[in-house]
């Protein structure tokens, strides 16, 4: 009994450090912005920050799952770009929006499934398979339109993200729905617990009858699926599809995941905290821009925060040693 209480405390402390960090950043920006005559902590700006981080946050769900199994997925950014162009072409040629969404999700899930097959059953390192997928999908995206962007979409597309419910843009609500679903899946289903078990100790998981390969493959499929969601959200938010969209998102997603405290070695961490990680990155970008910090310095500051976050996260382990 005492043991479980201690365990709970330990887990929560990690999360609490992260939440305090997020609040400190929020307050620091609020104070500094205030001193410069600008408002940071307003409901409209908070909505802005979440909208701006929404695509990243959703893509990072997939990245979290893959990283929990001890893998990595570099192809998520290229899938975001692919969905924009692929979906964009379909919308322009008159395919109903709902069908476009379904087709994009299915196609990207299949791409993820194929990637996952090579990683899990094929035993090719995830880094290499997804590096290949990244190139293939980015190239394919450019082939579709000869590298040209797609624009001139119906109003309905942008309504998919900007439509407001009780004054909250729906794109924000999507993010929370996705996170609630995934947190529920991870904590309450067998599939969810197995993701943790194969990330923690794949051999033990195998011995206890878990179909490691299958579970691993499915996480890549989900990464493809969540990238499709992210890509569709970006398409709707911009009402414009750029074949280069999403480049670099794979790294931003990894940053959100590690700031959120999921270990790159797998098996440990909370997906809900990935959302906090994504929001911290979003807050930084927004706050630094509002403060008119020169672009080059922004990159430096974000880099420092990534390392600092993980350094603080590891404080306990250092102490234990």
């Amino acid at each position: 009994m005492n043991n479980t209480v201690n365990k709970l405390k330990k887990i929560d402390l990690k999360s609490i450090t992260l939440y305090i960090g997020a609040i400190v950043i929020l307050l620091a920006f609020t104070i500094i912005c205030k001193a410069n005559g600008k408002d940071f902590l307003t409901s409209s700006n908070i909505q802005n920050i979440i909208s701006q981080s929404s695509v990243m946050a959703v893509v990072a769900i997939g990245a979290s799952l893959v990283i929990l199994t001890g893998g990595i997925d570099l192809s998520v950014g290229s899938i975001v770009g692919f969905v924009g162009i692929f979906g964009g072409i379909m919308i322009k040629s008159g395919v109903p929006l709902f069908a476009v969404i379904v087709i994009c999700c299915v196609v990207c899930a299949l791409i993820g499934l194929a990637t996952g097959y090579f990683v899990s059953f094929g035993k090719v390192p995830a880094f290499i398979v997804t590096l290949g997928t990244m190139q293939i999908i980015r190239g394919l995206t450019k082939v579709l339109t000869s590298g040209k962007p797609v624009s001139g979409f119906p109003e309905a597309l942008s309504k998919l993200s900007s439509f407001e419910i009780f004054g909250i843009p729906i794109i924000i609500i999507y993010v929370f729905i996705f996170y609630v679903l995934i947190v529920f899946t991870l904590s309450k289903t067998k599939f969810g617990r197995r993701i943790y078990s194969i990330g923690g100790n794949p051999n033990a998981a195998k011995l206890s009858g878990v179909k490691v390969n299958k579970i691993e493959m499915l996480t890549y499929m989900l990464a493809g699926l969540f990238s499709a969601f992210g890509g569709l959200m970006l398409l709707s938010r911009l009402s414009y599809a750029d074949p280069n969209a999403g480049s670099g998102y794979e790294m931003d997603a990894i940053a959100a995941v590690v700031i959120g405290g999921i270990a790159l070695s797998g098996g440990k961490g909370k997906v809900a905290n990935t959302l906090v990680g994504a929001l911290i990155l979003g807050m930084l970008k927004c706050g630094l821009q509002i403060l008119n910090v020169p672009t080059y310095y922004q990159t430096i500051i974000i880099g420092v925060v990534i390392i600092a976050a993980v350094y603080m996260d590891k404080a306990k382990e250092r102490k234990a040693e």
Partner: protein
Amino acid sequence: MKKLLAVIFVLVYSVSVMLTGCSTSGSSGETSAASGSDQGSAAKSGEDKFVVGFIPMTLNNEYFITMVNGAKQKAAELGVELNVQAGDQHASAADQLTIVENMITSGVDAICIVPSSSEGLAVALKKCKDANIPVINLDTKLDESVLKEAGVTVPFYGTNNYEGAKSAGEYVKANFKAGTKTAILTGIAGQQNAADRRDGFIKGAGDAINVVAEQSANWEVDQGYAATQNILTANPDIELVYAGNDGMAIGAVRAIKEAKKESQVKVIGFDGTSEALNMIESGEMYASVAQFPAEMGILGVENALKLIKGEKVEESTDTGAKLILPENVKEHQEYCKKYAE
């Protein structure tokens, strides 16, 4: 530990309540969005300073840095505060939308923007319109369809890439023999300016050139270098390389030098960057089409201020292009020095 956490929590909570309290009272007390003259900054700005947001496509190359420097100088002269922000990815529509949103939050009075592509800013323009912030379009012209979609009119100050490239082509036509064996290095496939710089040159040069090789080198020095090496292997007798920007042209010059064909192959670039100007001066490069990004920045800030004050502005201005050759390179270098810092 628990106690400590509780203390931190109470502290954080009380500070946040305090701050939200003054942030709401502060914003309701403000009349102009950008007055920036509440308690905190009252000492900083005695009078209201107008703020112009300035968004170049990126800050990763000299062209846009020069543009920003021109804008900064003009802003200092007019007593306008300039807020410069660029995305960290090359030409990202998503980054630009985010920047526009954050500039609206930070309370700029007008925005000058070089769009990441001519089609991608409809949503951002609509947000500016809703926030009543005038927008000026620089360098890369926004499509009419985008402006119509956003329901705005936006003045444009920049050059026509096609015309600039055509003038380089016409110079080649006048100074080279017919059927000169030519290789062309183009920018990123699918980008409008890449196509314009290629098509304009071919149109202007007409039958003076015989294009034996054409490669996309994505605007990059290293790719221009590799592409030219391969082109020289396949076509050792080329006489002219035309590159869509100076970066690729510089790569071409390196490759040609390595192949010891400097006397045989001439290189024409585009942009008139300082490195290219130095190479023209030393005779390594033949020519470059220079645009005037600083003028675009200057016109942008100048007219943004007019729009803020409700004055009329020029709907469209062509800032022109000029072919830089060994005979006029010194003069152009002098001009560029003004905007180097």
